[in-house]
């Protein structure tokens, strides 16, 4: 093969490799972006399902699995069980009222 043909073939080969590399990079970036979007979408869907009032009564196991988000909400007034401004303090003697079951 003449020398200039070899150089031409090598140049075309390098150009092809660069094109493949570029397409591979864009495909990887697109895939990563889609994965993030799908992940965010699924987490919102899961949260919505947990908050929905249109499903059947949860099993005990399901109910306890919901403890984790409740723990987070409870520390923020308005979102969960509200903790008192301060815990009860020890007192001596009798009470002005009695708290017991009725």
């Amino acid at each position, binding site marked *: 093969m003449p020398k200039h043909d070899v150089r031409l073939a090598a140049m075309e080969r390098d150009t092809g490799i660069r094109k493949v590399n570029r397409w591979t990079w864009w495909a990887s970036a697109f895939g990563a972006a889609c994965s993030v979007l799908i992940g965010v979408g699924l987490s919102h869907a899961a949260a919505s399902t947990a908050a929905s*009032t249109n499903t059947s009564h949860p099993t005990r196991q399901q109910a306890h699995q919901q403890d984790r988000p*409740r723990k987070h909400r409870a520390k923020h007034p308005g979102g969960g069980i509200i903790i008192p401004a301060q815990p009860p303090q020890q007192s001596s003697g*009798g009470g002005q*009222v*009695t708290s*017991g079951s009725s």
Partner: protein
Amino acid sequence: MTDDDVARDTFDVFGTTAVLLVTALPAISQARAIADGELAAIDLACSRFRPDSELSRLNAAAGRGAQQVSPLFAELLAAALRAARLTGGDVDPTCGRALAGLGYDKDFAEVQAAGDAPPRLTGPVGPVPGWRRVHLDRAARRVRLDRGVQLDLGATAKAWAADRCAGQIASKVDGGILVSLGGDIAVAGDPPPEGWRVRVTDDHAAPASAPGQTVTISSGGLATSSTTVRRWNVGGRPVHHIIDPATGEPARSCWRTVSVAAGSCTDANTASTAAIIRGPAALDWLHDIGLPARLVREDGTVETTAGWPRDDGPGAAA
């Protein structure tokens, strides 16, 4: 009647005893009038034993489409559904059929007077329908119950009523207010300097000498749930009023009594009832969400969480 510069009024309501305390002594009559009005309206809205209540009419319409309800009933039901949501369904307002199946379909005094009743249901009751089968459109004030759902708001209504009364009185009366409805306690306004002294024990009607602990609170609410009170017999079997929604049966718990302090009486009662139903898991749950609580085992030993003061003195074991 006064003690410690606090005016007191005691009266019967909802089949239990109510106590009203105010620091502005002349305001006790006004406070009582406000409480009477609120409690009468709440009873008419959500009593399971009154055929003319909104709740009875709604239960009768289960499976027959959405029904219009009053603003008050919508608030009561919203509170019950919130309690169910916050406890993952452990405090569930659809226990009406389970309670009626145990014979608790009339005022509790009549249940007790009837003595040992024959069982109405044979075999396992099974889980209650579940709070997700109650559909509340709060803006439109319309409620739809799926077929077979029977509401009972007993797990939250009394505590919610205490919060409501305390808030309404505080909006019209100066000073501090304490409302106790059968031991479900809500406070509002400026408390006494040393706080409100509350004796915590199994039974709200227990004498002052009963085992327990005295604590003070200055805001929010304090509630106690127990399996030792409101008990009766069905077919020779002792039962109580705290239903485990997972089984439809009275809860079998390692705790006989749980007291909780929270930002409101409703939240305190929600947590104390859920703790009875959750059993051993309640300790970690209360600790993790930071709720001060006192839990009494069947043998009388006491556990506390989240800053509830330990009381190792004589008479502490409830």
